[in-house]
C-alpha cells in the first residue's frame, strides 16, 4: 500500500477555493507528469498507485475530483468508483485512459465517472476538464461522444434481443442530444457547440449531462453487448 500527499486540510475547499484533486494511477511517471501539468491551477491533495490505497485515501481526504486511471490491477478505476461513490456521492470522478477500448470506457462511465479523457490530452484541456467535472458537468472527449453515438445508433426496438421494457426516456437520445454529440465528435469545444447551435454553453452542458445520465442508467443491454462486441473486431 502506498500513497502520499499533503494531509487533509480541515476546510474542504482550500484557501483559494481551488479544486481539490486526487490522482489514482499505477504509473509513477504518469502521476508525476499530471501533477506537473495541472500545476497551480488546482490543488493536488494526494495520489495513490493501487485500488485499495486509493479507496482509503479518497475516503479520508474527500477531494472534489478524482483523476482515475481506467486500467489498474485489482479491478481498475471501476473498482475505486464502486467502492467510494456509495459512501461519498459528492466525490466526482474523471477517467483517464490510454486504452480507448469501448468496453473499458463505457464500463467506467456506467460505474459513475463524470467523464472520460485520453491520456494524450494537453495540460490546459485537462485542467479545464477537471474544473468542469468539479462543477458537476460531464466531460466528453470526441472519442467518447463517438462511442455513445455508436452505442445508441441502432434502433432499440429493431435490435435482436432488445430489452423487453424499452424506456424511451433513457434508452434513446433526443435529436438535440445527438446533434450536440456529433459536434463534440467533430472536435468542437462546448463553447463552439453552443455557438454553432445558437444555444448557451449552459444548455450544452445540460444536454451532455443528460446523455451521461442515460449512459449510466439505460437498461438497454445492447450498450454492454455493443461495447464487448466492438472489442472483438
Amino acid at each position, binding site marked *: 500500500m502506498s500513497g502520499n500527499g499533503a494531509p487533509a486540510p480541515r476546510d474542504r475547499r482550500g484557501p483559494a477555493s481551488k479544486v481539490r484533486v486526487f490522482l489514482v494511477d499505477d504509473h509513477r511517471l504518469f502521476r508525476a507528469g499530471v501533477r506537473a501539468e495541472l500545476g497551480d491551477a488546482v490543488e493536488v491533495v494526494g495520489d495513490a498507485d493501487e485500488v485499495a490505497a486509493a479507496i482509503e485515501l479518497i475516503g479520508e481526504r474527500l477531494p472534489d475530483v478524482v483523476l482515475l486511471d481506467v486500467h489498474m490491477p485489482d479491478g481498475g478505476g471501476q473498482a475505486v468508483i464502486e467502492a467510494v461513490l456509495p459512501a461519498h456521492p459528492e466525490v466526482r470522478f474523471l477517467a483517464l485512459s*490510454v*486504452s*480507448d*477500448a469501448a468496453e473499458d470506457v463505457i464500463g467506467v462511465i456506467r460505474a459513475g465517472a463524470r467523464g472520460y479523457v485520453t491520456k*494524450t490530452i494537453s495540460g490546459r484541456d485537462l485542467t479545464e476538464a477537471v474544473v468542469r467535472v468539479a462543477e458537476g458537468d460531464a466531460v466528453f472527449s*470526441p*472519442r467518447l*461522444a*463517438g462511442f455513445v*453515438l*455508436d452505442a445508441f*445508433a441502432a434502433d432499440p426496438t429493431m435490435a435482436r434481443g432488445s430489452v423487453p421494457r424499452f424506456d424511451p426516456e433513457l434508452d434513446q437520445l433526443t435529436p438535440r442530444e445527438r446533434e450536440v454529440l*456529433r459536434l463534440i*465528435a*467533430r*472536435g*468542437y469545444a462546448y463553447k463552439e457547440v453552443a455557438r454553432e447551435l445558437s444555444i448557451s454553453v449552459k444548455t450544452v452542458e445540460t444536454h451532455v449531462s443528460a446523455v451521461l445520465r442515460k449512459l449510466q442508467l439505460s437498461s438497454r443491454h445492447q450498450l454492454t453487448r455493443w461495447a464487448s462486441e466492438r*472489442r*472483438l*473486431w
Partner: protein
Amino acid sequence: MRGPLRRSATGSVVGGVAEGLSARLGLDANLVRGAFVLLSLGGGSGFALYVVAWLVVPRAGTQVPIARRALADRRALGLALALTTVLAAVLLTLDALGLSGAANVAWPVVLGGAGLVFVWRDADEEEKASLRELVGQAPLLGAPVRHRRGTTVARVVVGAVLVAVGLGGLVAARHPSAATFVGVLGAGVVAVGFLVVFGPWWLRVARDLAFERRERVRTEERATMAATVHDSVLQTLALIQRAAADPREVTRLARAQERELRAWLFEGRPPGSFDEADITSVSQAVAVIERDVEADHHVAVDAVVVGDCPLSDDLRALLGAGREATVNAAKWSGAPSVALFVEVEPARVSVFVRDRGRGFDPDRLEGEHRGIAESVRARMGRHGGSAVIRSQPGRGTEVALVMPRTEARG
C-alpha cells in the same frame, strides 16, 4: 476454543474438518478422524458428511464457505452432474452384478463425489494450492511416481496376481455350473490388475502430455509476443531516441506506435498489416488516412468513426476526398491537430474534417487553395455527394462531405 465453527487451515490432513470439529467439541482430532473413517467404511456416510462439512463450513480466517461460490459456478454444476451419472452407472452395474453392497453406499458416494468436484473447483486460491499439494502426495495420482524398486516390484507382483486370479475366474466361468457373475467378476479383477500395473504409468503419460502441451502453447505465445513487440515497439523506441532533438518527430513516432499497438491489442490486427488491398471497410480506410497523414505531415489526426460499412466506389471517392481535405488541413492550417469525424448512417456517410488553424475566406480562394477546394467538390459531385467548406480567418476550417448510400437502397 469457542466461536463459530471453522475448518482448520493449519492442522488439516485433508480439508481441516476433523481438526475444526475437534477444536469446537474439545475432543482429540484423531478421535474425530477415526469416527469419520468408521462411518465411511460402514455405509459411506462418513465420506459424504465430511464432504458436506467441507463445503458449508468456512475455512479458518475466512467468512465465505465454498458452497457459496459453488452456487455461482455453472461449470462445476455441470461437472458434478456428469460425475453423478457416471458414479450412479458404475454403482448400478455393480449392483446388477450381484455386489449387493453397492446400492447401500450409492447415496453417500454420489453425494460425496459430486461435493468433491465443487471443493476442487471453488475452494479459494490458498486452499486450492494446499489441495494440489495433497493430491501430489497421494500415492497414485501424485507427481512423485518415484521409481523406487521395492514399490514397483510390489506393484507388479500384486497386479500380476490379480490378473492371474481374474483369468482363473474367467476360465472357471466357462464351466456350465458357474454363475455368470464369476465371469464378470473375473474380467473386473483382470482390469483392476492391469490398472495396478500400468495405472501410474498411464497417469504420468497423460500428465506429461497435458503439461507439455501447455508449456509449448505458452512458449509459442511468448515468442509471437516478443517478435511483435520487437518489430513494433522496440524499433519505434530506437527511432525515438535518435530523433530526440525533434519533438514533432518524436510525437509522430509515438502516435503511430500507439495507434498500431492499440489496433493489435484491442482489435486483434497484427501490426503493419494494413496494405491497401486489405481495406474493405470505412473504418479501415479512416485508420489509413489517420496513419498516412500523421506520418507525412507531422500533425495529429484525431479520428472518430461511428458505425461502419463495406466500401463501395462512391464511398471510396468520399474517403478520397476526405483524405485530401485532411492533408489540406494538415498542410495549411498550422494547427497541431486535425479532427476527422466519420459517421455511417443507413442512408448516407458523412465526413467532417476540422482544424482550429488560421482559416481563410472561402469567397476569396486563390492559387493552390482554390485548386484543392475545386478538386474536393468535383470528386464529390461526380459521385452524387456534396461538399461544404466553412472557414473564417482565425477560426479554423471545417470541410463537410456527405455521400448518399445508393447500395443500401438498391
